[in-house]
């Protein structure tokens, strides 16, 4: 849900697409109908058979125009019938009181008749700056907030919460969610072991927020599986999701020609300040010191600040290597995604179809081709793969039916 009306020379004139990108660039006339287009595309996904629609929360940037994903989710409850409404997620430390999120999510679960997937995130670098939320101390606050929401959904109220950050005398939210015991809880994380441990302790699901998928994705899955095991739990593919972008057309050449403008707009403009070295990256680094110093030391040892990031890609070949934006015919896209699934054994694919300033008609065509020619094969082949890899889960399912 990028802002699609930037001037052609944005990259030359502005050093970031985040936090301080001047909002005088917002064109109120060109932007009429923009949110309607976003909502229509998501409703279209439901119509053509996607399993769900994913929304996220961002502030003060051109990358994602959704400061309040719950508003879009509310609209979707009225426009869609079947798919899950996945909010990844509300940024808890930005709220004075997480009970407000517990209430809004419970409303959405009711309004959608039990289709909500409840994501929670702590906010990353940009929110540190634009909401003045300190990155390091809010981590403890974040986990308390998640636990408070879960309690508010499962423990009969009214009860008192004696939390360090959110002490409350009367926790008793009306309404309660439709799903029992509560909507599935998803938590995005990069590759921080601490985050995975906290997710495992609580039995929640893990969404890897990286955009690139090489060996690191498989390593994250293995680490998550190992940590789950340490906590007496077991990894199954439904416990983890990954993020990628895709564009499908009739042939590889046509896909590349049609996607090109939107992809480069997205990479050069929307990722500036996030996944580009040009300008100032505001999503990770010493000024956003939320990871423990020992982890930062490991990060320094294992990384090189001169390595290009996703948005530094100059050619299509660079892009292909990162396995992040997958562009091609249905066959190509199927093969490349199946390759990622084979290595990473992740059961949930969160796919961005609208990139940068991509026209609505092309976005919809790509979504339709994906839904009809890629998704059915991915579903069948990944089910077979996971049954082989996780035979216990397969047996449990057979016994249940």
């Amino acid at each position, binding site marked *: 849900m990028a802002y699609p009306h930037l001037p052609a020379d944005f990259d030359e004139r502005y050093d970031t697409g985040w936090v301080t990108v001047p909002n005088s660039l917002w064109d109120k006339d060109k932007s009429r109908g923009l949110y309607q287009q976003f909502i229509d595309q998501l409703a279209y996904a439901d119509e053509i058979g996607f399993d769900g629609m994913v929304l996220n929360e961002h502030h003060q940037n051109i990358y994602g125009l959704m400061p309040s994903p719950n508003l879009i989710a509310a609209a979707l409850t009225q426009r869609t019938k079947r798919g899950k409404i996945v909010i990844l997620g509300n940024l808890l430390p930005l709220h004075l009181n997480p009970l407000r999120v517990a209430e809004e999510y419970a409303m959405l679960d009711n309004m959608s008749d039990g289709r909500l997937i409840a994501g929670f995130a702590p906010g990353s670098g940009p929110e540190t700056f634009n909401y003045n939320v300190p990155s390091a101390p809010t981590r403890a606050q974040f986990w308390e907030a998640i636990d408070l929401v879960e309690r508010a959904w499962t423990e009969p109220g009214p009860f008192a919460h004696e939390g360090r950050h959110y002490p409350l005398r009367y926790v008793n939210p009306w309404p309660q969610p439709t799903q029992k015991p509560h909507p599935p809880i998803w938590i995005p994380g990069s590759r921080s072991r601490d985050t995975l441990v906290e997710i495992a302790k609580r039995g929640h699901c893990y969404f890897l927020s990286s955009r690139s998928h090489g060996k690191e994705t498989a390593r994250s899955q293995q680490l998550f599986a190992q940590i789950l095991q340490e906590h007496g739990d077991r990894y199954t593919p439904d416990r983890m999701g990954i993020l990628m972008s895709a564009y499908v057309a009739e042939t590889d050449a046509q896909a590349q020609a049609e996607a090109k403008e939107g992809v480069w707009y997205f990479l050069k403009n929307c990722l500036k300040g996030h996944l580009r070295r040009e300008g100032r990256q505001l999503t990770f680094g010493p*000024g956003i010191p939320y990871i423990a110093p020992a982890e*930062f030391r490991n990060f320094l040892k294992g990384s090189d600040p001169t390595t290009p990031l996703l948005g530094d890609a100059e050619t299509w070949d660079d892009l292909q290597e990162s396995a992040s934006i997958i562009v091609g015919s249905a066959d190509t896209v199927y093969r490349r995604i199946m390759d990622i699934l084979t290595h990473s054994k992740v059961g949930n694919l969160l796919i961005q179809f609208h990139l940068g300033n991509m026209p609505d008609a092309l976005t919809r065509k790509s979504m339709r081709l994906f839904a009809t020619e890629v998704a059915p094969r991915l579903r069948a082949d990944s089910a077979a793969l996971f049954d082989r890899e996780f035979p216990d889960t397969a047996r449990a399912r057979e016994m249940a039916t």
Partner: protein
Amino acid sequence: MSMRVVDVRGRTVTLAEAGNGAPLVYLHGFADVHAVAGELLPFHQRLARHAKVIAPAHPGCNGTDELDSCSIDDVIFHYLELLDATGLARFDLIGHCVGGWIAAELAVRHPERVGRLTLIGACGLFVPGEPIADVFMHAQPERGTDSSSLRSLLFAEPDGPVAKRWFPDGRGDLDEEVRRYQMLRFGSFVGFKPPYFYHRELRERLYRAAMPALVITGERDRMVPPAHARTYHDELPEAARLELVHGAGHAVHLEQPDKVADRIVEFHKQHRDEFADAQFDATTHA
């Protein structure tokens, strides 16, 4: 000079110490001992000719344990516990940047313990229209490797040798990188929000810090505008002349170490403290 660790109610604290005589507690800032350098710098060594310099590393920095909860109030109590654990009933106090803020907070709470107070480029005050610059934003390198905007906050000459020694472009020495990170992390705990490296009530409390005080700032301090030093100077009842150091930035004690140290020594001589000077005389004439 020595480095040692002390136990403070089960927590480890790193102390750098040098010299003999009256105890002089030094609380560090961002461009400083424990925050970039693992040991005392020429500025501290020069002070150590005249006093016993005791420089603790803030919680989370250079081997000192992090605090579970690390607000400014928690940090003040941490320092009271450290002072008690090391038997420092009365001492001279110097603080730079965040360390200056902590020093001022200690001085208004326990004026009876602080002999003479020196604040260098100290934050801690809300001064309308003179915001403290965003060190966290500037700590994010440009183009992945360029630290010049952080250097320009901290130093008058951002491309000078001192600035580049302690805040190099690209990946520096691993231990120094981690120390810089730990100091930013401490800063994020204590001073990010709310508010941004200040405590609104501190200004109204400064009347309590009635010990002799010296306020120093680099005239080109681009992190803590010199208006903050003027405010400290105006509000501290016994403040000596405001020391505006020409040609220096926020890290005035790294850029002009001899000048700043000599000025502090002179200030101590001008404002004799019976308790401290008795200790100094005892050690130097022994």
